[in-house]
């Protein structure tokens, strides 16, 4: 009986702990960290594809395919970090307009994810020319948001 009670207390504690974690994740500073981290990694894995598309680095199909695959996952990660709770946060270049135009912002984020999917498909198909084209379109989709929703 006592054992069962102890077990219940422990599981309750773990459960509460898990809930606490979930609540902590939603703190604005963590959301800002989350999206910055995701966007930093996107930059890291997108950069070499750009250098190869522009002929600044020799084309390495394996690296392009791997990076594009990473980007498919990473491109999904920043967006739920953009919530109205972070609007007043100082350490971000995200403009508060985002939270007034959530529909437009989300549409732009989806556009970017769609372009990344195309990039990854082109990489998997081993089509260097298509990769170059897709790289440009992903870059444009990045720029669309940077121009509209990022402070200088």
């Amino acid at each position, binding site marked *: 009986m006592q054992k069962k009670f102890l077990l219940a207390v422990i599981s309750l504690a773990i459960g509460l702990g898990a809930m606490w974690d979930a609540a902590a994740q939603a703190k604005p500073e963590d959301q800002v960290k989350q999206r910055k981290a995701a966007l930093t990694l996107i*930059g890291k894995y997108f950069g070499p*594809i*750009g250098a190869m*598309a522009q002929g600044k680095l020799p084309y390495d199909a394996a690296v392009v395919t791997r990076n594009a695959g990473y980007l498919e996952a990473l491109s999904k990660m920043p967006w739920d970090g953009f919530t109205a709770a972070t609007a007043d946060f100082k350490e971000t270049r995200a403009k508060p307009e985002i939270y007034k135009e959530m529909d437009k912002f989300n549409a732009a984020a989806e556009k970017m994810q769609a372009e990344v999917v195309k990039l990854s498909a082109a990489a998997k198909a081993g089509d260097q020319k298509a990769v*170059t084209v897709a790289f*440009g379109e992903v*870059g444009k989709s*990045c*720029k669309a948001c940077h121009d509209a929703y990022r402070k200088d």
Partner: protein
Amino acid sequence: MASDAPSSTIQRVHVWDLATRVFHWLLVGLVVFLFISGKTGGNLMLWHSRAGALVLVLLVFRVVWGVIGSSTARFRAFVVGPKQVWVFARQLLGISTRHTVTPAEGAATTVMGHNPLGGWMVVVLLLLLTIQVSTGLFANDDIAMEGPWAVYISKALSDRLTTVHRWNQWILLGCIAIHLLGVAFHVFIKKENLISAMISGVRKIDGSVQVSVLRLVSTWIALLVFVLAFVVVGFVVQPIF
């Protein structure tokens, strides 16, 4: 431009050498392309940086040509003091000056090359373009493009210079708008077609005006300067070409 006056009273003066005209229109084309590609992004960014480097070539050429070039291209011929600019501006708008206009000042209305106001606009535009090109060399777009010299400085500094690059484009655009308004004023109100003169090099001026002798320097020398500027810039900004 047909004129009512008999042709004998119109003199055709060759004011702009070929080099200055090619410089001008090449720059126009590049600036238009640079604005469009800068706004579009994507794969045009590679061409944006190449076009920017070409503007640097043109700037180097123009500065050299401003010292050794034809008389109308030289800075000494069109960069004048504030008093001359003031007197010229009043004359242009038909406001009488308080003092008697001396022959030297009077000549300002019929200068063959850049007038005192236009001359300063040349200087301002060249300076703004220099700022734009040099910040571009260090800029980054946080996507997959950076200027060839961005690797030599910190990311924070590169970001700051990128901000200058972004702001200066609007200052540049504003000054280009003023430049165009000035040209429009001459074309539509003063009835002097500066645009055709910048295309053909020839200005039609009333026969009664005393024209000072203009010395045009050979286009071959200009070509040599341009090639040298191209080689120097190409060498310094290596990763682009």
